[in-house]
């Protein structure tokens, strides 16, 4: 059974802005897939549908054989628990200690009461410590999260996903707000984790080089539709030119990216 099966998925935002248009996609369990494409191509929106945050405007979406578009409440949370997401801006709670941010990966398994108790006195320090050590910042466990550097915060976010222990890891531009010299180390860390624990890994990447170097399957997305879906050695410079050709001017791009990343959608 496929990990992800998307059939004709479309997402249109309130301002009639089409983010994803009639997308079909199949991802097998344990696969590692990179998504590349210009800003505003709909990659982030796609990921937010894949982790059941946004609801597709139309189309059907199966996760591990289960149709998820019309799930609500407890069943929806159960599906979300099996999908771990790493975000471009870490999306950690800055005023909490690192340990609470890491242990929040457990929230899908904990009762509300248990999670409240852990907020007062962390109940699972060993688990958090193990995850933090694996990403190399075990000494930061009791620091306040906003005291850490960008790269360290991204590692905390990875530790949170480790604690969550999902079947799928979605990494949405995990390295674009990280020092370029750290970028490949974080990408390879995620690859390693997915390999060792047999997790499916989907990653949005700005950097074409990283995508081609680390992933056996690369999908190019442009204006909400996939342009190609190939192994890296079949991707020619010509295809890449097509993917990024004539895309929006930097100014518009920024505006687009902002809208896509959903500042407007929150309210």
């Amino acid at each position, binding site marked *: 059974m496929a990990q992800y099966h998307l059939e004709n998925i479309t997402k249109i935002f309130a301002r009639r802005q089409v983010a994803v248009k009639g997308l079909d996609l199949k991802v097998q369990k344990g696969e590692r897939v990179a998504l590349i494409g210009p800003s505003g191509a709909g990659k982030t929106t796609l990921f*937010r549908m894949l*982790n*059941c*945050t*946004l*609801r597709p405007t139309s189309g059907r979406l199966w996760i591990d054989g289960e149709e998820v*578009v*019309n*799930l*609500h*409440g407890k069943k*929806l*949370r*159960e*599906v*979300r*628990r*099996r*999908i*771990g*997401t790493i*975000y471009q*801006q870490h*999306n*950690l*709670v*800055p*005023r*909490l200690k690192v340990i*609470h941010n890491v242990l*929040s*990966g457990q*929230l*899908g*398994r*904990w009762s*509300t009461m248990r*999670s*409240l108790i852990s*907020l007062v006195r962390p109940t699972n320090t060993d688990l958090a410590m193990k995850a933090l050590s694996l990403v190399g910042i075990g000494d930061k466990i009791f620091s306040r999260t906003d005291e850490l550097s960008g790269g360290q915060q991204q590692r905390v*976010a990875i530790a*949170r996903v480790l604690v*969550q222990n999902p079947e799928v890891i979605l990494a949405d531009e995990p390295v674009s707000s990280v020092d370029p010299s750290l970028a490949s180390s974080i990408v390879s860390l995620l690859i390693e984790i997915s390999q060792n624990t047999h997790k499916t890994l989907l990653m949005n990447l700005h950097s074409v080089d990283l995508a081609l170097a680390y992933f056996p399957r690369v999908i190019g997305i442009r204006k909400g539709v996939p342009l190609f879906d190939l192994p890296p050695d079949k991707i020619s410079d010509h295809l890449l030119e097509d993917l990024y050709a004539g895309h929006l001017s930097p100014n518009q791009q920024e505006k687009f990216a902002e809208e896509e990343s*959903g500042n407007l*959608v*929150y*309210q």
Partner: protein
Amino acid sequence: MFEIEGRENLWKFFIGMFPPELSWNFLSLLFRPFLETIQISMMGTLIAVGIGFPFGLLGTRTFMVGGVLNEADVKGSPSRFALRWSGYFMARGVLSLFRSIPEFVWAFMFVRAVGLGPFPGVLAIGVAYGGMLGKVYSEIFEGVNYRPLEALQSTGANKMQVFFYGWLPQVLPNFVSYTLYRWECAVRASAILGLVGAGGLGQQIEISMRMFNFHEVLTLLIILFLMVAAVDYISAKVRAIL
């Protein structure tokens, strides 16, 4: 507007207040109403938080119905949609009602209902300030950064878990400082409430005024000022800890 007579009267009134009445006889009389004012303001604020917190949360649109945190859960489920919206409007309505009636009028009604004394004062502050706190809480809640909340929710956390792990930590300083500010207001309000018989220093102000004893009124105003300043000091200390 500024006739000579009026100006002279104003001047006489001010001069007439000095010096403040500081005899032990009078001061010892104030001990009880002083404590009572503190008690009324604290109990009132506590009740106000008890009303404002849950209703403020229910009255937060992004918590109940709108935005990215509710999209997958609410869209495509008419029953949830209706339930959430009705909870939201109910909370908003209750809060509007509570704060649209001034605490003075609430006190007046509670004095009629439960009799003279501090109890109607506590209720009046609790209800009126509950309405104000709830409204401001909901605005504070809506002003957070939603990215961390989206991340928490995507781990499979429920709404309350998202609230305690992501929402509350972000707003805690604002939340506490506004609550303490309301406590300060409650100390002041207790002076007004005393005028309708709802206990505290206000009752003493009313009595001294009636007896044209403006020296005593000045003493009472000074005490009130010191209390407000003390609350302000405490709130600054608490904010510094957060």
